[in-house]
């Protein structure tokens, strides 16, 4: 079996199943069956990645804090422990059979709908991610816009959860979450504009095609692309409510934020939605800046494209866990200042830099000019913001 055949094995499989079903089903049903066949693997694989991530996250966080992390649960009724990787099954069963508590004063309908309204848009976002060669479930002409459109729909579900609980911590968490998501959506979208200008398309599959042929063709390998990728990463962390931007669910301040009043399976849905949102955001970062499913070296193209996508996704997940284990949480005013005074101006500068990159002749001059265009404003801006903050040596005051 050639490398190409292994790469396309899922596509071949899908067409085989379609061809096998074709005589038995009416014609109008075929597009629906085809769509179901494209969607089902996504609905199965990414929740599995989520399940594994919960264990990996707890183990890695444990290692960062010098403790082993979960290492007991393996296959039930045997002595096989699998280094604790059976934990997610136990957690899943626990979430399913736990009592579902709804506050008496809660707005029952909205309270019930909120987790569903979170998970559906997040799952929809996966339909435009190219997870392998010819493996985009829905290759839209404006795929990137689709991703951001469904992403912005999750804000409303966060509000629904926080407001319907009739709990001040839940409402505070929801307000924090919405303020944060609205503020960071701006740099998130603006940081992708450079890539869209360069490739001249909003289709995710075409953006990946434009980065073929080794890691030096990836957008993150250009000065403007690297800066945009870095800003994208910060904004994506904030958009996914991950540490150091986890103010909406800061457990030491507001219990659990907008899902304080959720328990059992609905809580598990919020948990799932949050992680799936993180993976989708990572997937978009991979697609736009890190060459999508392309191998880093042309010689490595023998490895199937979908393996490369999931390897890159794994690196992203580990990176986010590392961030969570090492960074302290920001304060609300710091969060807003970072978004509006630092991220938005810098993303605008990367757009201009991308334009300059497009119209200058390739060479060292172009590289230096564009780098200077980004580094100089970055230094000036960070310096100005640092001085404006008026920070000096920390002083302590004691009670007299």
């Amino acid at each position: 079996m050639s490398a190409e055949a292994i790469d396309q094995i899922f596509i071949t499989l899908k067409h085989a199943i379609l061809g096998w079903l074709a005589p038995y089903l009416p014609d109008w049903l075929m597009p629906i069956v085809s769509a179901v066949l494209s969607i089902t693997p996504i609905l199965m694989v990414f929740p599995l990645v989520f399940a594994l991530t919960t264990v990996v996250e707890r183990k890695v966080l444990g290692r960062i804090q010098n403790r082993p992390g979960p290492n007991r649960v393996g296959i039930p009724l045997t002595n096989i422990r699998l280094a604790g990787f059976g934990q997610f099954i136990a957690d899943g069963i626990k979430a399913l059979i736990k009592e579902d508590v709804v506050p008496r004063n809660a707005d029952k309908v909205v309270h019930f709908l909120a987790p569903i309204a979170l998970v559906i848009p997040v799952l929809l976002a996966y339909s435009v991610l190219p997870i392998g060669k010819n493996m985009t479930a829905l290759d839209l002409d404006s795929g990137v816009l689709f991703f951001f459109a469904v992403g912005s729909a999750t804000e409303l579900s966060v509000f629904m959860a926080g407001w319907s609980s009739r709990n001040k911590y839940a409402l505070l968490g929801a307000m924090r979450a919405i303020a944060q998501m609205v503020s960071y959506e701006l740099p998130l979208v603006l940081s992708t504009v450079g890539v869209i200008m360069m490739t001249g398309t909003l289709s995710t599959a075409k953006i990946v095609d434009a980065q073929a042929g080794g890691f030096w063709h990836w957008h993150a390998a250009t000065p403007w692309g690297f800066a945009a990728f870095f800003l994208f990463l910060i904004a994506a962390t904030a958009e996914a409510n991950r540490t150091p931007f986890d103010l909406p669910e800061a457990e030491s301040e507001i219990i659990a934020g907008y899902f304080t009043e959720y328990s059992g399976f609905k809580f598990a849905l919020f948990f799932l939605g949050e992680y799936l949102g993180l993976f989708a955001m990572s997937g978009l970062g991979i697609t736009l800046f890190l060459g999508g499913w392309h191998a880093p070296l042309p010689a490595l193209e023998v490895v199937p494209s979908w393996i490369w996508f999931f390897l890159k996704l794994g690196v992203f997940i580990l990176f986010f866990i590392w961030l969570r284990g090492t960074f302290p949480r920001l304060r609300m005013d710091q969060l807003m200042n970072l978004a509006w005074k630092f991220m938005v101006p810098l993303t605008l500068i990367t757009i201009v830099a991308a334009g300059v990159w497009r119209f200058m002749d390739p060479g060292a001059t172009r590289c230096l000019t564009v780098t200077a265009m980004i580094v100089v404003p970055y230094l000036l801006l960070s310096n100005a913001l640092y001085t404006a903050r008026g920070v000096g040596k920390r002083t302590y005051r004691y009670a007299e």
Partner: protein
Amino acid sequence: MTLAFAILAALIVVSAVAAMTLRNLVHCALCLAVAFIGLAGTYLQLGAQFVGLSQVLVYVGAVAILIVFAILLTRSGEPGPGRQFSATALMGVAIALAVFAVLGKVITSSAVAKRGVLPAPQTSVAQLGQKLMTDYILPLEVLALLLTAAMIGAVIIALKEKESAK
């Protein structure tokens, strides 16, 4: 008249009516968001992909959020026992019905109702961008200016009273 259109139309009309009649303002805003999503679906069905997605991004992601924020900031989420409709409510409904009757009469009797259906136009985002940057460059610039003015204006209006109160 296809099934998809019937479902979307029912969704839009029901959620729009709910958005205008429900007692709780937050419910109204959420129903409005559903109506916006239904409209976005209609645009997608009509082949205007970019507009449909912009509709979700702007209306559901921004306008609906703005509205719920305004509801919470003005503490009008759950209104008291007082009347929700103005004294001339019947008059308003009558006017709206009259408007619908006139519009419906005009639409059903107009020449467009007898026009044949053309095949779906093939348009891409690239064409749209091309148009925006050539034929519509002046409106685009004016719009950018308008948005900046609106943003500054909104901030000033919302800030003003707070400072004088200090």
